[in-house]
C-alpha cells in the first residue's frame, strides 16, 4: 500500500484535493468509496487503458482538504460539478463505487451537461426498506473484521495490521472513516430526497453489482437501478461491496463494454 505517496492536487473554489490523472481519451471521473482511494489499485490502470482517468480523493478523504462547511454528499456533488467546470471536461463517464456511486447519483440528478454515461457500483444513497430496518449494514456498529467479512468475497485480501503500518497510512484510514461519518452518519448512508429525484437522470446508466456484497442486498441494488430511467443492471461474480478492488479486470471491461461497446 502506498497511500502516502505524494500526489498531484487540484484546487476548485479554494478547496485543494489530491487527484490521480492517468491515461488518454474520453474523460472518466472515478469516485472512490468511503474506504478511500488506494493509489496503487490495479483498477486505475485498467481504466486508464481506454480513458483519461481522473480520480480525486473527495474533500475530507485521503490527503484532501476538509472544508468546514461540507457536511453532506450534496456538498461533494456540487464540488464535482465545479471540478468538471474547472478543468472543462465534457462527454465524461462518471464511475462511482458505494459512497462514490452515491456522489455520482447526486451529481447526475443536478446536471448531466458534462456527462456521457453513469456507472454506479454497489451504490448506497437511497432508502427502500421499512423504517425499522436498515437497508445498509451499520458499518460504525461492527468491528473491522466483521465488516470485511460482509464487504468482501475474499476478506483475506484486506487483512491489515495497523501496528505494522506507517503512521501516515493509518492516519489516512482514520481520516477516511471520519469523513464517511461526517457525510453518512445520519440519515445513515442515504439522502431521503435522492430516490424521488433519480428519475431526472437522463444519460445511459449502468448499475454494477458485486454479487457477494452483504453490506447491501441485491434487492436494494435492483430497486436503486429501477428508479433510474432505462438503467441496466449487471452483476460481477467473485466480488463483494468493492468490485473494483476484487475484480478490477471485470469491472473495467463492464465499464467500457457499456460506454464504448468494446474491450469486452
Amino acid at each position, binding site marked *: 500500500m502506498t497511500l502516502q505517496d505524494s500526489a498531484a492536487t487540484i484546487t476548485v473554489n479554494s478547496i485543494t484535493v489530491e487527484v490521480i490523472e492517468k491515461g488518454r481519451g474520453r474523460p472518466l471521473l472515478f469516485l472512490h468509496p468511503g474506504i478511500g482511494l488506494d493509489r496503487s489499485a490495479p483498477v486505475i490502470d485498467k481504466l486508464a487503458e481506454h480513458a483519461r482517468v481522473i480520480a480525486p480523493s473527495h474533500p475530507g478523504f485521503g490527503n484532501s482538504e476538509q472544508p468546514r462547511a461540507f457536511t453532506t454528499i450534496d456538498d461533494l456533488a456540487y464540488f464535482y460539478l465545479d471540478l468538471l467546470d474547472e478543468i472543462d471536461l465534457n462527454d465524461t463517464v462518471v464511475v462511482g463505487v458505494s459512497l462514490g456511486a452515491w456522489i455520482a447519483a447526486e451529481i447526475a440528478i443536478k446536471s448531466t451537461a458534462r456527462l456521457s454515461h453513469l456507472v454506479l457500483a454497489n451504490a448506497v444513497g437511497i432508502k427502500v426498506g421499512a423504517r425499522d430496518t436498515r437497508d445498509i449494514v451499520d458499518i460504525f456498529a461492527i468491528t473491522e473484521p466483521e465488516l470485511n467479512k460482509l464487504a468482501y468475497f475474499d476478506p483475506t485480501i484486506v487483512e491489515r495490521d*495497523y501496528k505494522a*503500518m506507517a503512521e501516515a497510512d493509518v492516519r489516512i484510514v482514520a*481520516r477516511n472513516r471520519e469523513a464517511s*461519518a*461526517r457525510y453518512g*452518519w*445520519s440519515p445513515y448512508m442515504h439522502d431521503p430526497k435522492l430516490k424521488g429525484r433519480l428519475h431526472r437522470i437522463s444519460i445511459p446508466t449502468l448499475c454494477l453489482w458485486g454479487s457477494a456484497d452483504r453490506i447491501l442486498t441485491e434487492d436494494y441494488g435492483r430497486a436503486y437501478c429501477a428508479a433510474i430511467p432505462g438503467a441496466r443492471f449487471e452483476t460481477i461474480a467473485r466480488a463483494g461491496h468493492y468490485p473494483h478492488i476484487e475484480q478490477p479486470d471485470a469491472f473495467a471491461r463492464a465499464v467500457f463494454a457499456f460506454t464504448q461497446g468494446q474491450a469486452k
Partner: protein
Amino acid sequence: MRVYHFSEHPYPNAWDDPHGYLRVNLPNRALDPKIAADLFHRYHDEYLLADELGLDLMLNEHHQTATCMNATSIVSLSIMARQSKRARILILGYPIGHRPDPIRAAEELATIDVISRGRLDMGFVKGVPYEFAPSNANPVGVMDRFWESHDFIIKAMTTHDGPFNWEGEHFHYRQVNLWPRPWQQPHPPVWSTTASKSNARVLGERGYVIAVLGSGYNTRMLYDSYREGYAATHNGALPGPDRFAYLALFATAHNEAEARRRGELVASYLRTGGNVYPPFKNPPGYLSVDDTARLMRGFTPERSFTKDRRVVDMRTASVQDLIDSVLMVCGTPDQCYTQITDFIEYTGGLGNLLIMAQAGFLDHADTVDSLTLMAKEILPRLKEYKQPVVASAAA
C-alpha cells in the same frame, strides 16, 4: 471546601457476567422494573440523607446502560430540586454534545434552578463516545455543537428583555424567551470536565469550574493549564480553589478492613464500566485523527498516575493501586483525610471533591455509614483545612 455525593444509579443486578457488554446493546430484558424502582427510591434516599448531613449532590446521565439508570437526568434533578433542602445540586454532566434541543436543555435547567431556589450547578459535557449510537448525534464535529449549544443556553438564560432569534451553524430557534428564567444571576455556575490541557485552558479563560477524573497524580498539569487560561483573561489573577473539582471513588468505615471491603464493592464500577462492544468505544470523529491513528497503532494514552509516577489501569487495579492513584479515597476517616489533603497539596488547591460514595453492589447500610462518617468526621476537618496557594500560573 465542598464534598458532593455521587452515585451513577447503577443496576448492578445485570453485572453478573463480567465479560458481557453492559452498555448500548445489553438487552433491557435484563432489567426488572420492580427492582429498578426499589433502587431509584434507595439512591434518592441516600441523596436526601447526604443533603441532611451537609454534603452536596452530584448527578449524571448515561444511556442504554446497566451502569447508570439516569438516562434522563432531569428526572432525578427534579426530585432533588424539590425534596432536598440545602445542598448544591450539580449535574455533571448534561451531554449537550448529544442533544439536538438546547432550547429544552435551557428550559429544564432554568426550571431546576428556580425550584431548588438557586442551588443548581450546570455541568456541560460533550458526552461519552459509546452514546453517539443511542443518541444518533454525529460524533464528527461534536465540540462545535457543544460550544454552539453552550453559547445558546447562556444567551437564553441571560436575555430578559424579550425574545431573540438564533440562526447558528447547528441550531435554529425563533422567539427565544425562557420562562421561568434562572434564579441565580447571571446564570447558574458552569462546570465542565476535561482530560486535555487545551480544553483545560479554554475552561480557565472562561472561569468555569474544571472537573477532572481518573488522572490522579497527573492532574496538576490540567489544573496548571486552567490557571494559565484563567490568568490570561483575569489580568493575571489566579483562580481560587472553588474553580477546581476532582472526582474519586470513595469508601470509609471505622476500621480499615471494613473500609477496604467497601472499597472492593465500589471498585466494581471501574471494573465493569468499560465493558463496551469495541466499535462503540471510539466512534469516528470523537477523537482527533492523530489520536485515533495512535490508538489504532496500539498506543493507549497513559491516564492514571500514582504519586511515584506508576501508571495504573483503572479497569484491573487493586484497591491499593486505586488509592495510590487517587482514583479512590478509601480507609478510616483519618486515612481518608490524609489521602485527600495530600492530593490537594499536590494540585495546588481543590475546592470541590466529588465522591462516588455509592457504586456497584455497595448496599444501603454501607452507603449510609460511609456518607455519615464523611459528613461527621472528615468534612468538618476539610472545612477547617487551609488550602495551598499557587504563586504563579506557570506550570
